[in-house]
């Protein structure tokens, strides 16, 4: 839609005023036109409305899908789900183009060529399941069940696969979180037992009123939100941060600060945009903490930064503060300045002292405020743990943790789900292994490759980026009962993920999957790919199983809420093509393994127990909401404070419960799929704030948060009264029991055990902060960062409606002319989508691009649309067109995550641009795995750029 007055002017003036228009008789009144009548005939009454959720991205918004003749006709947000409050993003609304995509996997396939050649033959499900079953049986006999990894990728209905493989006998299951933002969520897990901290802007919230009733509350309370390296407008996984941010601004005068080297879409809503150098998030947080500690004055209303009541609800602050302050006396080798001082921070971040001061003061003095940090900052840096820990401290000491309008740990407050369906109980099974001629007994879970392996024994989110090393070298168990046990990795089952492209550097993954032994056999004997989509990782599989799309299978969604909410991700249509649901795939494989003689897989645990996916989901719902009755206002004043609540909202409301005082549990009627279907798909329990304190007294309730002391912990490993506490306690105990053997990750940063309180170390590949890399600064003058482009993630680039969108500087209409099969919406007939060939003119369709600053581009003789080569010191390079703008800090290059270089034909239009679009992952250093949990340093890299 483009303004053009060329023809308009020809007619302009021919008419003047509505009266003139009326005289022409062209204004039709009252009677329905035939077109309107037709519209009515085809409209609303004929649809069946199904409540489900969108699993195209991990925000998993509640959705309404309107079905006609067994096909998805309309997609809207579900108004009953508070995460999205009835709205749907572009991706969510484009679901038909994924479900009805010609690029879907349609039937099982077995590889006929070499791995990676993409040559497969179509087989029956029986043949495919036979093939996998025989291999898994053989591998278990020869190497042990632990030689199999089940990687469940990016959606939350992983439970069926976890159950299957726990029962089979391997503890090595994982999901996408392991390659998402592990360092970002470290502080919350360590200090409150949670995960992600988000601003209190999910609206509506269901709140108990003083008269005892429950009300949907839409009012915003936030006065300041600081988004550090977090871009909710584009990386929309915490979906309410879109409408919440602008809502809090317009309705409550909330200020917004965005800290990001690139001018993100979120920055467009910012009152202050700060663009520091990449990888200096912890530096800035440290400076804020030092500024607040040095300048706090309880007697000066303009400097009353700290809310000292936090000390009542926490433990270990004095130790933390002392450890933090000990750094002030040290001089940083990179600049000779005192750590966390304004000068030091200005030197390292590239921000001015005035900017750092202003931010620190603003955050200290504005209440309520929320400081949040995202996956694009602490999440993707080697030392992101430090930033995450300081971020928690900043929110806690300023009184913003779980305050109305402050910051909420959404992991701590979301509903419990999964329960026994997930099969965790199978990991408790006793097994024996022969180690150096001695038979040793332990539990299945003691075989875990990370938690008991030699490298990252605190990797509670699994070190997926280390899998390529495990494929080639196997696993050394160094901790726990099986210490000394070595086992190979022989099978990798990947489901709804694309690790070959995004699991660190693609070349490293390919190399490991293709590695052969002396006899010429693949070291990794079995590589299975299960998905709806034909992603790059499928090209490297031995067997491909087509899974029902998110609209064709059932599970639950519940993520990132401010209080307990759970909703049914219902199956909306029947599986298309030969696709099968996870529950059916689980049962088929379990039965096959049983037939092949594996008695660990029993009928009573699988195919006789779960006759349908609804049986499985009902079991998952049994523990919900499973959280304690705490906070102000108390969610259920009629039940004792601190008791765990289980059951439907209405049974708890009506008092149809049993109360177990010994176990401190209030139990109503279990939530079921049927209950959800009768309630717009969603169960919602009441919101409360300051859930760490008693509702009627200024003292801790000892039921929240989820730490060893039920207090906020600023210490991570300590002894008190003969007992040991803290988030790192169990990992240090492992090290001690292993005679002090230091895990590889900790060795890298010179630690001998997990630290007892505040700690600091530098990131990698950053010449501005780590002296080791200063020598590269001249030849590699740019820092390379990456970020999500919501519309073009690994698994949605085949959707043409999303290619018509441009995003920031990393997803721009810079295509060459091409032709591709695409699903096209049909305005007439019974099919919502029809596949057809379409021609796309040059520069009309978005492709991955390389974002750089105007002045930088000028110096290199580059302009928007020019092809450039980006190369790193490891001599890896990638190629793409540049987008030049003033919206990025000089010295920074940004590429979207998995936007370019898409080499699977299953990507549709995106495949056509693979030769001139950049792959950020090709430049990732696969050996930079963060020391505590083995997470890839996705945004720790420097590069040079030249015209191609």
């Amino acid at each position: 839609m483009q303004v053009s007055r060329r023809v308009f002017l020809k007619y302009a003036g021919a008419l003047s005023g509505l009266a003139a228009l009326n005289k022409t008789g062209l204004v039709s009144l009252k009677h329905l036109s035939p077109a309107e009548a037709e519209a009515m005939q085809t409209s609303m009454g004929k649809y069946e409305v199904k409540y489900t959720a969108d699993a195209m991205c991990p925000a998993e918004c509640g959705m309404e899908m309107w079905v006609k003749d067994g096909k998805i006709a309309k997609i809207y947000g579900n108004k009953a789900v508070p995460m999205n409050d009835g709205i749907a993003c572009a991706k969510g609304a484009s679901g038909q183009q994924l479900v009805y995509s010609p690029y879907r996997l349609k039937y099982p396939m077995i590889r006929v060529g070499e791995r990676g050649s993409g040559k497969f033959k179509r087989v029956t499900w029986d043949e495919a399941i036979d093939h996998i079953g025989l291999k898994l049986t053989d591998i278990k006999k020869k190497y042990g069940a632990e030689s199999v990894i089940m990687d469940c990728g990016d959606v939350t209905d992983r439970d069926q696969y976890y159950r299957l493989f726990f029962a089979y006998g391997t503890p090595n299951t994982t999901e996408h979180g392991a390659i998402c933002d592990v360092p970002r969520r470290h502080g919350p897990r360590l200090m409150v037992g949670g995960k992600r901290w988000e601003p209190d802007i999910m609206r509506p919230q269901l709140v108990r009123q003083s008269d005892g009733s429950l009300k949907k509350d839409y009012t915003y309370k936030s006065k300041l939100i600081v988004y550090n390296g977090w871009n909710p407008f584009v990386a929309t996984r915490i979906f309410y941060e879109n409408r919440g941010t602008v809502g809090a601004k317009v309705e409550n005068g909330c200020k917004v600060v965005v800290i990001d080297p690139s001018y993100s879409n979120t920055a467009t809503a910012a009152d202050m945009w700060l663009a520091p150098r990449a990888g200096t998030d912890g530096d800035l947080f440290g400076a804020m903490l030092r500024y607040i500690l040095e300048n706090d004055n309880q007697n000066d209303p303009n400097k009353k930064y700290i809310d000292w009541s936090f000390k009542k609800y926490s433990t270990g602050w004095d130790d933390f503060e002392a450890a933090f302050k000990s750094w002030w006396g040290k001089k940083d080798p990179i600049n000779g300045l005192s750590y966390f001082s304004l000068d030091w921070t200005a030197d390292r971040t590239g921000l001015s002292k005035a900017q750092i001061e202003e931010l620190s003061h603003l955050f200290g003095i504005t209440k309520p405020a929320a400081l949040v940090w995202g996956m694009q900052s602490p999440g993707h840096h080697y030392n992101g743990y430090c930033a995450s820990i300081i971020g928690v401290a900043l929110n806690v000491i300023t009184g913003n943790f779980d305050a109305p309008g402050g910051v909420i740990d959404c992991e701590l407050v979301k509903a419990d789900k999964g329960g026994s369906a997930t099969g965790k109980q199978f990991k408790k099974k006793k097994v024996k292994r022969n180690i150096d001629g001695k038979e040793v007994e332990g539990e299945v879970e003691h075989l875990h490759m990370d938690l008991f392996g030699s490298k990252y024994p605190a990797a509670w989110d699994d070190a997926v980026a280390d899998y390529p090393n495990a494929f080639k070298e196997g696993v050394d168990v160094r901790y726990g009962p099986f210490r000394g046990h070595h086992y190979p990795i022989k099978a990798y089952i990947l489901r709804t993920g694309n690790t070959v492209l995004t699991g660190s550097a693609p070349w490293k993954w390919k190399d490991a999957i293709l590695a052969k032994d002396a006899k010429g056999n693949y070291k990794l004997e079995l590589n299975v790919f299960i998905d709806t989509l034909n992603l790059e990782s499928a090209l490297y599989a031995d067997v491909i199983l087509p899974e029902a799309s998110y609209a064709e299978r059932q599970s639950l969604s519940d993520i990132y809420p401010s209080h307990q909410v759970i909703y049914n991700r219902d199956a909306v249509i029947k599986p298309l093509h030969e696709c099968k649901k996870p529950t059916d795939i689980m049962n088929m494989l379990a039965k096959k393994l049983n037939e092949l003689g594996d008695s660990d897989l029993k009928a009573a645990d699988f195919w006789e127990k779960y006759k349908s996916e609804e049986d499985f989901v009902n079991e998952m719902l049994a523990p919900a909401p499973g959280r304690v009755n705490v906070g102000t206002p108390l969610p259920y004043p009629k039940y004792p404070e601190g008791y765990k609540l289980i059951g439907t909202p209405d049974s708890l409301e009506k008092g149809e419960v049993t109360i177990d005082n010994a176990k401190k549990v209030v139990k109503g009627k279990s939530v079921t799929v049927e209950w959800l279907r009768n309630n717009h798909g969603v169960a919602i329990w009441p919101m409360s704030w300051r859930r760490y304190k008693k509702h009627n007294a200024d003292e801790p309730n000892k039921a929240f948060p989820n730490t060893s002391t039920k207090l906020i912990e600023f210490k991570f490993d300590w002894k008190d009264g003969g007992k040991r506490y803290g988030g790192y306690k169990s990992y240090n105990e492992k090290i001690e029991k292993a005679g002090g053997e230091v895990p590889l990750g900790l060795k890298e940063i010179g630690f001998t055990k997990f630290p007892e309180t505040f700690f600091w170390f530098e990131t990698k590949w950053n010449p501005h902060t780590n002296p080791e890399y200063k020598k590269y600064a001249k030849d590699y003058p740019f820092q390379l960062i990456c970020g999500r482009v919501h519309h073009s993630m690994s698994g949605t680039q085949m959707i043409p409606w999303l290619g018509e969108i441009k995003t920031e500087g990393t997803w721009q209409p810079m295509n060459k002319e091409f032709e591709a099969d695409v699903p096209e919406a049909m305005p007439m007939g019974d099919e919502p989508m029809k596949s057809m060939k379409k021609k796309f003119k040059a520069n009309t369709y978005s492709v991955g691009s390389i974002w750089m600053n105007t002045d930088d581009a000028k110096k290199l003789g580059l302009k928007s649309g020019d092809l450039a080569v980006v190369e790193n010191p490891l001599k890896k390079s990638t190629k793409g067109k540049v987008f030049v703008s003033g919206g990025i800090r000089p010295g920074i290059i940004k590429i979207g995550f998995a936007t370019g270089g898409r080499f699977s034909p299953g990507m549709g239009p995106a495949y056509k641009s693979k030769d001139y679009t950049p792959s950020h992952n090709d430049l990732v250093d696969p050996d930079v795995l963060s020391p505590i949990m083995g997470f890839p340093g996705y945004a720790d890299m420097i590069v040079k750029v030249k015209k191609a």
Partner: protein
Amino acid sequence: MSKKYALLVDLRRCVGCTSCQVSCKMENAVPIGQFRSKVDIADTGEYPKPKRYFFPKICNQCDEAPCIMPCPVKGATYKREDGVVMVNRDLCIGCGRCVGACPYGARFMHPHIPVKNDPKPYAKNVHEVAGKKAKDLRVVDKCDYCSHRLAEGIEEPACVRNCVGKARTFGDLNDSDSSVSKLKASVKTTYWHPEYGTKPRTVFIAPDEKVFSAADSQINK
């Protein structure tokens, strides 16, 4: 009194997500490459003061709609009493004159909806259809505020229904209690190129009116 429909876009709340653009395509089966509703995104300014504008474009449902006059078929394109500018797919002969006449680019020929009305009687005066049969021609399409939803009493076009920032408000300007009336009365509003004299019905709250010119500049096409 008839209703007087209007759509208000509050750019203070627009997050640039393009949900309106895609939701419209989903709702109305708009073909790839064409738009009833489109978000233009413009990058301007230099570091450290860059600016990015999001401009969600949609048919203005002009009260003096310049697309009606050029139409050679009486009633093929018309304005309803409630203000919605409609295309009658039974009458449209697909000449495309209205497409060029709209200064906002709000109209296009729909490749998958063939013309029903026999163009032959018009061919003498309408050279665009001369010698062509109905099946070779395609009707014009445009935003009609999701008239099929309105007809069912759902006074909420799909773009409003799914708007991520809750930036879009739709309703009846003749009802002073409607949210669109109240918002329009309480906040300064503006229009997209009102100087064209078409009397647009689609209203914007635009804190920075440069959004209109920036989005139409050459580099941001």
